[in-house]
């Protein structure tokens, strides 16, 4: 009896769901309308979303166009090879470029030494534990600290405590600490991508741990490390705030010759010229021309980094 009623019930339900019974529950017209609306919304939003990307690209293009068009007529050999001057027509950025290069001469070896050293310790030597996670956490926190704060650190420690003032050395050391997290993280990744069988093969041949690291692991990871190094250098070369906080003097007409000299670098000069456009309108053109130089420099550095990554990186 019970069984029978169950079967009847099922038949009844089946009838409802198929054929004529369906109309009573789903109004096809309404469904069609809704479906149309949903599809239309999908299409409209897709367009709208792709437009946001167009907007971002447009802004990038506008920025480049604006800078380049303002620098036209100002960016010439004379501008690149003469000294700074108060007069806008005579001013050139030879000393500024040398300042930036000297800065890189300090930053590159210091970050490479500290960054790769830290990464090698973390990946090859340290044991998993409190110390390793402390350093890891510390590095990720350090990368979130605003660059002005690094400026205050540099001002207090390098500028005042070590009596380096606002020299290239003080600026370079400050920037080195600022970009340290970038090179540490990328070097760690590069070291991690070196397969273990290379290390084991080296040990099997009787090599010690350091020999293995120095002759096998580091050369294999070199492309990745160099990519990270160039990226961190390009971050350092565009950095303004920490150097301004260090108290780089406003107008330095003398070209710096060694790392103990006072200096200005490309971004700092852009900053001062932009601020002084209120006084002399042509300074805006000088700032734009300097920006073009800086952007070209960054473009070259990043291209080199990409080429190194694509060409020399071996995959295992």
């Amino acid at each position, binding site marked *: 009896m019970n069984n029978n009623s169950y079967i009847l019930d099922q038949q009844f339900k089946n009838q409802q769901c198929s054929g004529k019974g369906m109309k009573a529950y789903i109004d096809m017209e309404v469904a069609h309308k809704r479906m149309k609306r949903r599809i239309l919304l999908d299409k409209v939003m897709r367009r709208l979303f792709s437009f946001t990307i167009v907007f971002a690209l447009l802004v990038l293009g506008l920025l480049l166009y604006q800078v380049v068009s303002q620098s036209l007529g100002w960016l010439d050999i004379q501008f690149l090879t003469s000294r700074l001057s108060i007069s806008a027509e005579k001013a050139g950025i030879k000393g500024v470029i040398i300042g930036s290069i000297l800065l890189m001469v300090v930053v590159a070896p210091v970050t490479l030494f500290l960054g790769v050293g830290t990464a*090698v310790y973390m990946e090859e030597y340290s044991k998993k534990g409190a110390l390793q996670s402390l350093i890891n956490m510390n590095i990720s*926190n350090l990368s979130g600290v*605003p660059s002005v704060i690094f400026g205050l650190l540099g001002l207090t420690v390098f500028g005042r405590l070590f009596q380096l003032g606002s020299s290239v050395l003080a600026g370079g050391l400050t920037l080195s600490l600022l970009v340290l997290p970038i090179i540490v993280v990328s070097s760690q990744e590069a070291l991690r991508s070196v397969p273990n069988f290379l290390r084991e093969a080296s040990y099997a041949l009787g090599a010690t741990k*350091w020999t293995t690291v120095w002759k096998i692991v580091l050369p294999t990871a070199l492309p990745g490390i160099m990519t990270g190094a160039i990226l961190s250098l390009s971050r350092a070369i565009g950095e303004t705030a920490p150097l301004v906080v260090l108290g780089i003097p406003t107008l330095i007409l003398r070209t710096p010759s060694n790392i103990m000299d006072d200096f200005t670098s490309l971004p700092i000069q852009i*900053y001062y010229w932009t601020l002084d456009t209120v006084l002399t309108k042509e300074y805006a053109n000088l700032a734009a021309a300097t920006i073009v130089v800086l952007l070209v420099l960054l473009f070259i550095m*990043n291209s080199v980094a990409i080429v190194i990554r694509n060409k020399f990186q071996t995959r295992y």
Partner: protein
Amino acid sequence: MINLAKGMKKKNENLKLFEKIIPTILLIIASISVLTSIGIVLTLIVDAVHFFKEIPFREIFSTELAPLKAENASFGFLPLIAGTFITSAIAMFVAIPIGLTAAIYLSEFSTVTRRKIIKPIIEVLAGIPTIVYGFFAYSFVTPLLMKLIPSLEAKNALSPGIVMGIMIIPIVTSLSEDAMNAVPSSIREGALALGATKLEVAFKVIVPAAISGIITSFVLAISRAIGETMIVTIASGSAKNFTLDVTKPMQTMTAYIVEFTSGDAGSGTTGYYSLYAVGLILFIFTLLMNLLAKYITKKYRKEY
């Protein structure tokens, strides 16, 4: 023969010694990053303590900031904090809608090849030095906005806020897109098979599934905006107004630090120490943001 063996033994011993000191040397190098953090906290705290010895803690909540006045200099940091939050809020108002929709487009609608081309170009925006954005804000965006809003002053909070927003679009886009990409295709396909449109899949399935990554990207972007210096220094001026009016000049915490160090505050004055107090507040804000981001990823991340 014996001599040779002796020589080798000596060389071996040298190597062994070298081998032993290497880890210590590397540990010292690695500890420099920790020392940097300790150095930052110490410099900020030590000099901020000097500041609070001379200025009562209550005063920093006043709305009047006049650090260079010869007599009765006042140190209320509220104008700076307000300036920081208003410019950052404008930036997020620009960056969140554009960054998030761009991320949704890249992850859900675009083809793989298109994504491979577009994503690096958007990331170029993040690689441009901030000083360049500052120049752009001051010499292009402000004059443009002045045509739309005649009452806008040459230095204002609106223009640097917008440009800062453009600068942090890549942070939002890149991190959110990574989070959405990490949602497994099976979930996406399941929803599509049930008859959902791509838009519905994006908003009802993918975004909720990737929400921790998306929120993290917002928080990191805010932290970046709070710490951003050169754009606001150039384009929003140094007037210490306590106002909500974005057409007026304002000063942020970062711009205050820059103005003061490149200006005339001699070492040892209260004005000089006030830098470190402001720096400490700034540091705490960004640190909290970064810790919050980490907490969100850790707590709410779903592993598929």
